[in-house]
């Protein structure tokens, strides 16, 4: 069922790779100060998840996982639209997207 080409790379590798990407994303969110970069890190996390889902899906020959990926991509796009709008709104007000400047509310 599972194509030979796919099997040449064991599933663990995908898991490790996706997890690594995911961790990079988390670290990015937690350490960076620029809203856009934080946002990109979140996207990286989502893409790590996508990769993971596709790998699992392929190894299980179960299309459900890949369908989920479409959902994630679509919803992530909606999120990007809203997120960028919020960032632009902030930029208009304070001329910066550095979250360090946002201290009106106690963080």
């Amino acid at each position, binding site marked *: 069922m599972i194509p030979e080409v796919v099997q040449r790379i064991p599933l663990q590798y995908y898991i490790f790779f996706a997890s690594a990407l995911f961790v990079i994303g988390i670290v990015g969110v937690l350490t960076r100060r620029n809203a856009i970069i934080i946002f990109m890190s979140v996207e990286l996390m989502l893409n790590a*998840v996508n990769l993971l889902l596709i790998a699992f899906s392929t190894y299980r020959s179960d299309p459900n996982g890949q369908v*989920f990926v479409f959902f994630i991509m679509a919803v992530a796009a*909606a999120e990007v639209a809203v997120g960028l709008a919020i960032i632009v709104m*902030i930029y208009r007000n304070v001329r910066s997207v550095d*979250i360090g400047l946002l201290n009106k*509310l*106690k963080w």
Partner: protein
Amino acid sequence: MLSIISLSIFGIVNLFLGFLKSRRILLPATLLFLIVALILNSMDWNQQALYFGDMLRVNNVFVNFAGIVLITALLIVGISRHFGNDEEHTHPAEYYAILLFSVTGALMMIGFENLIMLFVGVEVLSVAMYVLTGTDKRNIRSNEAALKYFLMGSFATGLLLFGVAMVYGATGSFKLGGIASYVQMASMYGAVSPLLYVGLLFLFIGMLFKVSAAPFHFWTPDVYEGAPTIFTAFMSTVVKTAGFAAFYKIASTAFAGVYGFWAQSLAVMAVLTLLIGNITAAYQGSFKRMMAYSSISHAGYLLLAVVAKVPSSQSAILFYSLSYSLATVAAFGVLMAVSESRQFEGRGDDRYEAFNGLAKTNPLLAFVLTVSMLSLAGIPLTAGFWGKFFIFSAAVQANLTSLLVIAVLMSCVGIYYYFRVIIAMYLKPAEGEGISVSAGFTLTLVLTTVLTLLLGVFPDVVKNIF
């Protein structure tokens, strides 16, 4: 199920209503839409069914939770009086539409039977809330709240998704039933894949972020404080109810087989949430921020019921959500009226001092807020008392003694900060003159108060449905 479909259509209709010259029609129209949805929802009573390719389960639990969410939304729309009238809220049609969309998302979270549905529901709810948080466009605090909410929310979504992916890797299914049967089998043979544990952990962390339980609560106070009060009310009621409905569902069905694994860590988080929520709330100078921490502490009580995972947990969560939502809507409603008429440092005053002498200038508002505070504090003859009673009952049944002791002590701390506003209203001299409020606004607040007291005296009316 019809309620979900109808709400999405109504949302779009609402957008078109925005083209009309008269904006007066929007509020009654939205109320009407929600009432229709509520009726459609109650038609699903005793109609067990699966919809949308087995992705959504409609049963009585769904009807109950959806009913609470819809009623809360109705009340919140009822107190939304300034939409379209002032600088802050210039696009009323959009706000109401987005509000309806987010309720749709909440219903999806409540009824999900497949993790895809959970994810879509969470996102529909959250993305709508990001927008609503930032509606006060020129207010830097609202901007900041929106950005923080957005970044933390999407971060939590990422964690949630990672968990879903890992669970999928372990079980090969997104369906609650499929996951449950795998977990059941695997734990029976002692061969649970480590992927499942990792997935479960991340999934739960993602959910805890959404329901703002400690230690994933840090975004809550800022977001609640910065968002326009009406949407804070929405966030702390509808989002929390839906979040806990989903959380309890996933914990008690899909992962029931590994209860021992998650119960311990969740118990620790419940303790943390109770401690942090209550103790920090006691230190706040702003009523609004106190309400944010209080909402964290209530998440702690609800977590207690999740950890207990006894058959009565579900109805305890239902009743608690209802009583909490009623009281919270009333509290934020009064806060809205007060902070709009009293200014401090160039913006609406949401400190405790803003309430000074309210009992003299506006006895009705003061009474509404008092009942709401008493209900949140869990004083008898209010709905909140029964909420706590049922939660504690569930915890006693599950023998969670040490957790209970902490919960009980923390509920005493709660009295302290809830009473601060009562002290301000009744024992402090009045500053400034009375606040004028519209009839509809007053009516809604009185309705929440009456419901709170009614449920306090006759809890069986509602409890026997749950």
